[in-house]
């Protein structure tokens, strides 16, 4: 099953684009890192505000920037998929990649739970207001997962099969 998938991925035009052109991989990596900085920057800074840093800024003002972070996330996904199409065996049998995917899924769940349970209250806060404890818990989980995703991403090279 996995071998079939890898075989299929390595025979797609995307694989050719990634592996046969010298600058595709470096360009995709550069975009991946810029998108990462954008995502971690906007989401992470919003989390830091919930934890009490930069308290003079209203959370709603920082929340506006998260749309750029979401754009960064999609760029990361597209470029990340390009890597997988390029060298699928380097990812599917890599424990660091599995950790990264699990952390990404958990981050998604945390975002959903935040918007379902806490966002409305948080976005009403004024400059100087303290965020509720539950929002701080969401922020700690989010920051922890963002750091874990970066760590697992960096460890991919060292856990190659």
């Amino acid at each position, binding site marked *: 099953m996995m071998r079939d998938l890898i075989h299929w991925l390595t025979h797609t035009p995307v694989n050719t684009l990634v592996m046969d052109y010298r600058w595709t991989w*470096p360009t995709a*990596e*550069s975009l991946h*890192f*810029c998108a*990462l*900085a*954008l995502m*971690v*920057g*906007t989401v*992470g*800074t*919003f989390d*830091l*505000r919930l934890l*009490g*840093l*930069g*308290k*003079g*800024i*209203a959370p709603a*003002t*920082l929340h*506006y*920037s998260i749309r*750029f972070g979401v754009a960064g996330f999609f760029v990361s996904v597209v470029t990340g998929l390009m890597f997988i199409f390029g060298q699928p065996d380097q990812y599917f049998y890599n424990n660091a990649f599995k950790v990264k995917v699990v952390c990404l899924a958990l981050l998604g769940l945390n975002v959903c739970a935040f918007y379902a349970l806490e966002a409305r209250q948080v976005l009403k806060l004024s*400059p*100087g207001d303290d965020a509720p404890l539950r929002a701080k818990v969401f922020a700690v989980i989010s920051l922890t997962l*963002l*750091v874990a995703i*970066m*760590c697992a*991403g*960096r*460890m991919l*090279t*060292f856990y190659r099969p």
Partner: protein
Amino acid sequence: MIELLTAIEESALSVFIREWPSVFGFPTILFLHTLGLAMVAGVSIAIDLWILRGATAGAPLRLLGLTRTMWLGFGINLLSGLALLLAYPAKALTNSVFYLKMALVLLGVYVAVRINREIAARDGVGPVLAASLDLRRWAVVSLAIWAAATVTGRLLAYTYNVLFAYELS
């Protein structure tokens, strides 16, 4: 030059960083360098976007904590970067992209300091901040610099000429 690079490469610290067979060695230093980038560039990007959004006025010391996070990230980047440089000095110092990256990072820090000073000077002034075209221009420059610094940093892995000093002779 070759002698100096060789001496650095053969120093105990350089060999230790490069060859310690543990995930807490070289891989962790690389991770810390990425974390530092995310803290410096990430927070800077968020502040730039906040400025471009209008940077609505609020309580004094509005950025306190965020700027500290940036400086902490810069410290992590500096130390981890030095460790990476010690591990492979010839690889970095013979690559012109490395110098371009350094210049961009220094420029990015200068612009971030300038933006923070401007915001601090306007603290409590109110709507004036929202109208500052100058500050917005700096924010755009800052975004461009961090993007370029990130790209050049990534390209270091693909543009080096030699890995070790002996390859130069």
